Each structure stands twice: as structure tokens, then as C-alpha cells.
């Protein structure tokens, strides 16, 4: 696919208010092609809202989100914390967004097979998607997003309700998708997971960016005392 690159994404002064409360304020960051970016922070820090704003599911109250190319929506995909699966077969779930993108049938079939192989669900193509186990459902959601071959893949706590084995499987697949050149932007409140996956980290606290930068530097030498406390595992409130 030779779609124009939509990265870097420049976000400036982003704010979101709901019912009078500020969920996010003055978020400015640049997302460039490269290793996965993990958005870390305690519950209620605004991680999910930030992802939804970036993906265009919510409209910002203030600020700008500027992609490098127009038509960026079709070059993104998102996987939600609780996978949303259509009441259809596994293969039909994989085909749905491909049909929306107007891909020819042969290309759809190729991508469905490839996506099934990526997550190891080859034998379950004709099974109803909602009859899968929780872990398999999340794998399918991941496969469905990957089949769209997005330039940017947003993942909202994809492992939040998975056991360690399933989490490991999902992390491996995220790594494989990232290795194909797709930019991963993922939220988590699991510090250990961030250490395993992150190339870049954004620390979010109370709707503001506390600190952002390359994972190695940020994890080793945080600049703010709050970030240091969070990384030591202390509870932020």
C-alpha cells in the first residue's frame, strides 16, 4: 500500500472537558514513526480519553491534532479494552473493516488468512466470534486491527482483563505488528508491561503530561519527583 505517511502527528494544547470537569488539559506531544509509545498513568489520568481524541472518536474541547496527511482515519486502527466483536464468524469479523475500506475480495481473503496466522487462530475461522474465550476474543480484535495494515495502531489497555499467558501472547503479537513498521500507541497502567514494550513513554497524571521521552532515559532518570515516585511504584493520587 502506498498511502501517504500520516506521521508525525503533532498535538498541541489538547484539552477535553466533560460535564464541566477537565479530563485532559494542555497536552502537547509529537508522535513520530518508530518503536511503540506507551501512555502510562494511574486510573482516571485520562489515558483512554487521550487515545480516543487522537483516533478521532472524541472531539477535543481545545487544541489541535494535526496528522501529516489527509485521510488519516483510514490509516489508523484501534483495539479497545473490552473487545467489540460483531455477532458473526471470526472470518466475517476480520472481513468487516476490509469491506468498508473497499478492498477487493481476493485481497480480503489474503489478509484474513494472514491475520489468522498472525494470532494463531487459523482453526477457528468459521467459529462464531462471541463464542471464543476472553483471550481469543482480544487476539481476534488485534488481528482485525492488524488486517487493516494501519500506520498507527491505538491499543487501549489491551491486556487489562487477560491472564499472564494471554498477556504474553498479546505482547508478542504487538511486537510483531510493530516490527512491520506500524506505530503502536498503547495505554497501560502496568509499569512492568511498559518496561517490556516501550520505546517511548508518556506519563499522564490528572489529565496532564507529567513527563514524556525515550523509555530508557525516562525510566532511568525521571526529571520530576512525581514521575520518580510513580516509577518507584508509589501510589499517585
Amino acid at each position: 500500500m502506498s498511502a501517504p505517511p500520516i506521521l508525525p502527528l503533532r498535538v498541541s494544547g489538547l484539552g477535553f472537558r466533560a460535564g464541566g470537569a477537565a479530563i485532559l488539559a494542555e497536552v502537547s506531544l509529537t508522535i513520530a514513526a518508530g518503536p511503540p509509545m506507551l501512555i502510562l498513568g494511574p486510573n482516571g489520568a485520562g489515558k483512554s480519553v487521550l487515545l480516543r481524541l487522537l483516533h478521532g472518536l472524541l472531539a477535543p474541547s481545545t487544541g489541535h491534532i494535526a496528522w501529516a496527511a489527509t485521510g488519516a482515519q483510514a490509516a489508523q486502527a484501534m483495539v479497545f479494552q473490552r473487545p467489540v466483536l460483531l455477532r458473526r464468524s471470526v472470518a466475517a469479523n476480520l472481513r468487516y473493516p476490509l469491506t468498508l475500506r473497499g478492498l477487493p475480495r481476493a485481497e480480503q481473503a489474503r489478509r484474513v488468512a494472514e491475520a489468522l496466522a498472525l494470532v494463531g487462530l487459523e482453526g477457528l475461522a468459521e467459529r462464531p466470534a462471541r463464542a471464543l474465550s476472553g483471550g481469543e476474543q482480544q487476539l481476534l480484535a488485534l488481528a482485525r486491527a492488524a488486517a487493516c495494515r494501519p500506520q498507527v495502531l491505538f491499543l487501549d489497555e489491551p491486556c487489562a482483563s487477560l491472564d499472564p499467558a494471554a498477556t504474553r501472547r498479546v505482547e508478542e503479537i504487538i511486537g510483531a505488528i510493530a516490527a512491520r513498521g506500524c506505530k503502536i500507541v498503547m495505554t497501560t497502567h502496568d509499569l512492568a508491561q511498559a518496561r517490556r514494550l516501550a520505546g517511548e513513554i508518556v506519563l499522564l497524571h490528572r489529565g496532564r503530561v507529567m513527563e514524556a521521552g525515550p523509555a530508557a532515559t525516562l525510566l532511568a532518570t525521571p526529571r520530576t519527583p512525581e514521575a520518580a515516585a510513580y516509577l518507584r511504584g508509589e501510589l499517585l493520587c
Partner: protein
Amino acid sequence: MATCIWIADTAAAGPEPPGRYTGGVQDLTAAFHLLFSGDPGMLGIVAVSLRVSLSAVALGAVLGLPLGAVLAVARFPGRRGVVVALNALMGLPPVLVGLLVYLLLSRAGPLGAWGLLFTPGAMILAQTILITPILAALSRQALEGLWEEYAEALASFGAGPLRAVPTLLWDGRFALLTVLLAGFGRAAAEVGAVMIVGGNIDGYTRVMTTAIALETSKGDLPLAIGLGLVLMTIVLAVNALAQWLRDVAQRRMG
């Protein structure tokens, strides 16, 4: 006028005085005899009933289900008003619909040129008007929950609300089966509308409900009971079939 046939019939036979009726068992036996002998008159009545009510459900589904899905998905000013109005229309009295369609189709009415009055076509039209709001209101209810679940994911795929409508209709197909059943039950059971616009013409627009009303007032209780049993059996069988389909599908689809 065909309506006069019914009135004349009733007048000629005269209703059975309630106190003198004693033939319950004989009537029931006669009813079963009628049922299992395959009386052509009765089979004809059953056939007209099914044709009219199933056609009305099909037309009502074509109109009502997409309308319900659009209402589940769309957010526009006045949507609440439309939803309340639809819910109110669910309780539309059949005789009122019959009167309305009668006025529309009568020779002096706006659609008088169609020549539909006292034909099965008029009955289908009346029942369609009667059940379309029911199908729309119930499908809106059934699909709204599904839409809440799907909205973000579909938006993420780049599917607008318009594209979401067929998706919801397909993914909600098992819930919609129950909605269709409610519509069929309402259509098959109503008397008022088909009586007024169909005229209860023997062999042409006589359906089970109007025949039961007529035969009861004439005092031909075996036929009335027999038809009543057939009506109940059909409604039960259709419901059982739909429930079974739903159960099987749900077990398969999770």
C-alpha cells in the same frame, strides 16, 4: 356493499341468547371433525388469514425495521418526540386504523381510484399501518443496546451511522425475530381493521378472526371454535418455531 353482507347475516341468524347455550361438548367434537376433515371453506379462510397477515408483516418489516435501526443510531433534535410517538402508536386501536384506511380507499377518498376497498389488498394495507409502528418501536429498543456496544468500534472502522444501520439489522437478527413475531401476533389476532376494510366477504376477504366473530354471532359455534383452535395453533407454532430458531442460533453464535 360488502359490509352489508355481514350485517345482514347477523340480522338473519340473530345472536344466540347466552342463557340457552348447552352444547359445549358436541360443538367441540364438531369443531375437531371440521378441523381434521380438511373442510375447504375453513382451509380457504385460514389461507386468506395467513396471506394477509404474513404480507403485512413482510411489508411492515421492510418499513419498520430500518426505521427502528435509524432511530437507534441517529441523534437529531426531536428524536425523543419521534420515539414517544412511535411507542404511543403501538397501542393504535385496529378499528381506528380500519376507519382511516376505509376513508382513504372509499370511492370518494383520496385513494378511491385504486379500487382496493373490500379486497385483501386493503386488509394488507390496514394491517401494515397497524404493525409498522410496533415493528419500528420494538426494533429501536432491541437495537439501541447493540448500537451502544458497537458505536465506537464502527466509528473506528470508518463506518458512519448510515453504514451502521444494515450492520445492526444483521447483527441484531435474532432479537428482530422476536420483534417480527410480536408484529405477526398483533396482525393475526386483530379483527377491527380487517372487518372494516375487508368487509368479511365469504371466500374472498373472510379471515379467521372475522369468521369467528361472525359464526359466534350466528350461533355456528363448531366453526367458530374450530377456527379459534386453528388460530391458536398457528400463533403457537409460529412462536415455537421462532423461539427454537433463536435458541439454536444463540447457542451457536454465543
